[in-house]
């Protein structure tokens, strides 16, 4: 038995009849970190999440959640696991407060502990003013927060969040990000699946890419950092900048103009650093120098294009 906390997935597969939803998934998510799970629609993300959440049995491979196997030690896993599903179901007749209290009771908390925990969570996710409303009147964003609170009721060591940011307004997203980072800083393992890659970029320490049911290996992920990607450069005078870039060896046809900024293909971080140094050395006043797309988005696009 491994003693590793967090999530360990090795060679997991699962099919539904002829459909191989997950073919070969392997990754590790460590305590104290936020890991993103990215992949196109139908790539097996949700199936993988359901297997991690101890709701679906894998056909093969092994899963360890906080050191326990969800198939043979289901109760031990569930005691350590918080799951926020992508389907926003709530007990419509129950109030927000009662929902959290009953969830606590379902996790075998003593009655007074469940009551106390509900109050803490109401404050934490900012639903205090709606505590006595039935959950059916909540907006989508509020339901999302209730769902998150429900996943945190028993103070789990591992947290699975399925599309937590969808439907949230910008302010709520910032709140969510702060909350998730805080949970991770308490030493918990957080796995977040999302389509909003920019969102994950700011939240996640690392990412697992899954395409056609297969997770990308670490090497493949590292390789995407070396492929050509667009960098956004802004200088006081775009024409001067363009001339300087051509002088430094960039093919003029590759340079695209986006309003006052230029988009330039650069291969990898090292090359970008070198380019910036040479532009500054050439005396060009640079005000913006950044990747045009986020890290995750770049990996995502690169892998879904090139990968099988």
């Amino acid at each position: 038995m491994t003693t590793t906390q967090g999530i360990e997935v090795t060679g997991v597969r699962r099919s539904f009849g002829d459909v191989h939803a997950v073919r070969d998934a392997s990754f590790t998510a460590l305590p104290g970190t936020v890991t993103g799970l990215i992949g196109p629609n139908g790539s097996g993300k949700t199936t993988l999440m359901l297997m991690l959440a101890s709701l679906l049995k894998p056909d093969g491979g092994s899963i360890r959640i906080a050191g326990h196997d969800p198939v043979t030690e289901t109760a031990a896993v569930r005691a350590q696991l918080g799951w926020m599903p992508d389907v926003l179901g709530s007990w419509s007749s129950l109030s927000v407060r009662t929902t959290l209290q009953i969830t606590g009771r379902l996790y075998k908390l003593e009655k007074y502990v469940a009551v106390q925990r509900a109050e803490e969570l109401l404050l934490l996710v900012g639903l205090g003013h709606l505590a006595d409303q039935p959950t059916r009147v909540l907006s989508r964003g509020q339901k999302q927060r209730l769902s998150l609170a429900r996943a945190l009721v028993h103070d789990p060591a591992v947290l699975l969040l399925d599309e937590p940011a969808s439907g949230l307004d910008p302010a709520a997203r910032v709140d969510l990000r702060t909350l998730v980072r805080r949970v991770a800083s308490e030493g918990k393992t957080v796995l977040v699946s999302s389509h909003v890659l920019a969102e994950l970029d700011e939240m996640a320490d690392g990412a697992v890419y899954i395409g056609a049911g297969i997770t990308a290996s670490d090497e493949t992920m590292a390789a995407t950092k070396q492929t050509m990607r667009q960098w956004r450069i802004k200088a006081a005078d775009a024409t001067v900048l363009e001339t300087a870039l051509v002088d430094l060896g960039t093919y003029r046809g590759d340079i695209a103009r986006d309003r006052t900024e230029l988009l330039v293909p650069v291969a990898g971080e090292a090359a970008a650093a070198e380019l910036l140094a040479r532009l500054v050395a050439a005396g060009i006043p640079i005000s913006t120098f950044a990747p045009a797309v986020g890290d995750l988005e770049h990996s995502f696009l690169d892998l879904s294009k090139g990968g099988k």
Partner: protein
Amino acid sequence: MRDFLSGVGTVISLELRQRVRGVAWYVLLGVFVVLIAIVTFLITIAFRGFGGEDSGSTIYSTIIYFVLLLGTLVAPALSGNAINGDRDAGTLATTQITLIGTWQLVLGKFVAAWVTALAFLVAALPFIAFSALLGGLSPLTVIVSALVLAFELGFVAAIGVALSGIITRPLFSIVTTYLLVATLSLGTLIAFALGGVVIQTDRTTTSTYGIDFNSRGDAIRCSEPTTSTYPSPRFDLFWGVLVANPYVLLADAVPSTFNDNGDPEDLFGWVKAGVRSAQVPIEDSVYDACSDLPEEDNKTAEEIIASTVPGWFVGMLIHLALAGGALFWAKRRTDTPAGRLPRGSRVA
């Protein structure tokens, strides 16, 4: 064990608060009370007209039958989507990933559905008290009939919850529950009637008629015996079908009381006598106007019941096996982590 029961208790309270609480439920109870009030009122008037004094037992048995009828009509609607309805609403998986086991979930939902159906019995209490005031009510009848009624409502609740775990779509599981209740309540009657009519045995009647009569009207000279043969339905072969009928089962289980003529004093007794008489096969008969043998007179209900065998416990065992088997199957289908999934269904 305490842990297990406390988990079941949490699920029951969740179910009662989430599923049952609602305006529609109270309206339904209100309509039920009004209906039963009307029925009680009309029966009371009818019996006053006959000059019957101890009409309490008749009114009581009618109320109990009414609760059984409405209970079996409402219970499938309330319990028939307990599990698959939660899955559709997205609240099943969030319960399953907690420390609640599948048995706790299924049993909690079953007990909650049962309690809901029993509310109809509770709502009928004032009328039962009223029938007790009219007199003639035997305590044994009250206890046994209430227990059997509760058992039958529990049976329907169990079937409803179990089918909601076995069948993926709520509409189908509710309809299937209704079909099963209809099969037992009406289907058994149809099978009994059709079976009896289709399988017929020829019986002969040997008759000797009087030709000359004396002044008192007794025959002194008779004709030669004539025999006639006619087909007779064999209900005695099919009475067993009726033991699974909830209404028959209820009537059969309740100990009957009789008046001086050997007639039952409540509805249960009449139903019981009617069903039991089907056990008696029709024999060849002899009619002889000249013989001194007394004519066979018809047996009283009391005699019929005394000479035949009860079948209610067989019916109860059948219901118990059906409910238990269905709940077991539902538990296996609802278990997580899920292995094989039925076609077209999803976990969450």
